[in-house]
């Protein structure tokens, strides 16, 4: 039973890691957007409405973070996916803790996975330019496959590590916080988030930008 549940979480983490590739590196068909990933992952894990709620919050809080130029925003796919994996399945953490923990993990992914891997690709660009100048072929297709695999594995490992650490920690924290004013504040933050997010979305749609 425990093995089956752990397997479900590992598979969920793999789905999130695969969807995360869509956010910048490949395809960009927007299946990595929280409003898409959240409901579908929730559906797969047996709670579509929870998935839609977490996906909606993260989408509204991250919709205007645009990956242009050298800017790497907190990873929205990881935020939504991690929030949901924490809130569902065995050892589920309360939703008011899972959502901010997911937002934090999206930021951590940018620091620990995205930035180092992009620096690595910068070195790859140098070595490719040198190889082509020396008259040696550059296997760009193989390099792309390797980089996609590396990004997938790094994201998956981060999610698994976060689940192993944050699931028990989050459960204990929520058990302590929930009867207190801090717990009420966390509930308020989660339930009011869609409204704050709608205000932010309306701001980004204004015509005089």
């Amino acid at each position, binding site marked *: 039973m425990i093995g089956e549940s752990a397997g479900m979480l590992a598979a969920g983490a793999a789905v999130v890691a695969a969807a995360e590739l869509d956010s910048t590196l490949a395809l960009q068909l927007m299946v990595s957007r929280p409003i898409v990933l959240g409901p579908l992952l929730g559906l797969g894990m047996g709670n579509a409405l929870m998935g839609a709620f977490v996906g909606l919050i993260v989408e509204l809080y991250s919709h205007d973070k645009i990956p242009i130029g050298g800017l790497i925003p907190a990873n929205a796919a990881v935020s939504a996916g991690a929030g949901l994996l924490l809130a569902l399945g065995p050892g589920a953490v309360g939703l008011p803790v899972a959502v901010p923990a997911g937002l934090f993990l999206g930021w951590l992914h940018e620091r620990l996975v995205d930035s180092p891997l992009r620096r690595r690709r*910068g070195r790859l660009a140098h070595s490719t330019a040198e190889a082509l100048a020396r008259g040696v072929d550059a296997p760009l297709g193989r390099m792309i496959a390797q980089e996609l695999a590396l990004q997938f594995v790094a994201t998956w490992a981060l999610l698994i590590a976060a689940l192993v650490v944050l699931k028990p920690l989050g459960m204990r924290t929520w058990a302590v916080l929930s009867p207190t004013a801090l717990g009420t504040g966390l509930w308020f933050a989660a339930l009011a988030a869609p409204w704050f997010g709608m205000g932010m979305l309306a701001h980004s749609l204004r015509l005089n930008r």
Partner: protein
Amino acid sequence: MTARMRWRLFVRSFFIQALWSFENMQGLGFGFCMGPWLRERCGASPPETRRALARHCEYFNTQPYMAGLAIGMACALEERVSASAAEDRPALERKLRSLKSCAAGALAAIGDSFFWGAWRPFCTVLALAIGMTTVTCGAPPWTVAVAAAGGYVLVFNTPVLILRWRGVGLGYRWQDRFAAELGRFPWQKSVKAARLAGTGLAAGCALVGLFTIMTGAPGRGAAAAAALAAGWAARAYGLTSRRLYAAVWLIGTAAAVVGFRW
């Protein structure tokens, strides 16, 4: 350009950012996209192919959905380079570099403002509206999830895929008339239309949501309306999402301490 080649360039354009880096941006990805075309044009001379590939692995950055246009244009100009006499090639290669760089900037400006600044927020509101409608109709949760997520992906990707596919052909045809041809499209009108439609849909969703809450609990409805206005103000002030979330947590905690019941 044959249909098979166009298809190969189209498929490869989905991976233009796969080797994205701070220094080179999409340079290596652009080189990857150009690979089949360069091998076909310079196939008889591997050193020439490598030289052409090196040209296209240099710094390049544009909006990924608009990249097809730049790829098509680069293909046409590479064709001219390979067909030209050896003494004319350096000047043509300089022209290619310069046009590619100009096209990247122009396409990024248009694509960022339309796809990231207007189309994506519009599709978010649309998915929200679809979700609210299916919930109101009493549809089961799985229908809500599939309808909202599927609606978002389908609507967002329709212009994206059309542009990615047609872009390769258009860029190839336009060549150095690129800027003039690009200026004929009503980009600014499209941006305004998407934002206007998004604002209308967002207002509708907010009003329906507020009305539903207010009929049950007027106090909660007022709090939701205040949160909506505060979200607008927070973004106008430039508050990040994490800070806003923390601020709302503190407000909720302070309210609970003074005895406010939600």
